[in-house]
């Protein structure tokens, strides 16, 4: 798989990327794959390649966190859009809260080690 995540180490993104994709889908109601990649890039996560994004979206669909539908494009080809399900929304709420707690803990641990060094 081509790893096009430039800005952040791939292993950092591997965990939260599915959650981030689910969040941007929920935020916009429905999005197609390329638009999800753009939103993630704009949010600062970096360029996510198709080889990383679509397997992740396929997993979300398999887990029934999103549904998909092909819609005719305005001026181009049809697009497969992803829509969050009720189960997906519930999962997002739970995971968002847990992720927030996790991020706070890791941030505290990492920052504390730096502060200790500067004393």
């Amino acid at each position, binding site marked *: 798989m*081509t790893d*096009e995540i430039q800005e952040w180490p791939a292993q950092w993104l591997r965990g939260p990327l599915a959650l981030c994709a689910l969040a941007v889908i929920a935020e916009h109601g429905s999005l197609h794959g*390329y638009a999800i990649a753009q939103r993630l890039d704009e949010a600062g996560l970096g360029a996510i*390649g*198709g080889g990383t994004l679509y397997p992740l979206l*396929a997993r979300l669909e398999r887990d029934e966190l999103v549904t998909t539908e092909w819609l005719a494009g305005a001026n*181009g080809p049809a697009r497969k859009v992803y829509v969050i399900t009720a189960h997906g929304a519930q999962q997002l709420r739970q995971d968002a809260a847990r992720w927030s707690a996790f991020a706070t803990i890791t941030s505290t641990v990492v920052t504390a080690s730096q502060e200790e060094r500067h004393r």
Partner: protein
Amino acid sequence: MRISLDDEVRERAPHVDAAWAEALIVELRLRGVSGATVGDALLEVETHMAEQGGSVVEAFGEAKEYAASLDLPDTARWTAPQVVRVCAQSALVTLGIQLLVGGAAALASGGDARIAIGTTVALVLSSVVVALALVAKGEVVLRLAVERPVLGILLLGGASALVVLLAVALAGPALALPAVPVLGAGILLLGGFGALMLVARRRGSELDDPIRFPQA
């Protein structure tokens, strides 16, 4: 008029390199992914590439690895009626060819057709075994043919030799039958097989699972 798969792929996925698209299709097929899901996966790559541009390999990596990473369900599995049908078709064709060749040869030489029961049974059973092996382990057989064709040909040759040996060993006594009815039975069996295939195609219940692209 039906257009070829290559033409349809080029038409529906013009922004995806043709060789990459073919490799993706082959790998997904080898993994037992249904025709509709293959079309869905390819068209999603197309819509992404149409917007992003550039090289599909840079965006998606190698087709084979991408196909594996999608981890799509292998829904193109055989149902019990399909297994029965493919075995029946296999037996029908093998028996039909035997009778057709035996009848035609007898008609040409002016004598009776000599049908060795043991040979016929061995050939028909072998064809059913081959059909069952393809149904059960089709992915292994196809992967061998695609990825290691020389070994595939050698194994095919070995299996064919084994069937011939079996047919000769089990030949036993031959039935002497009038040439014309034997030839007629052969034509009837092969004709019947052809008619069944046509009916299946008309009904859309043929055994193959063509790639279908999603419609918006």
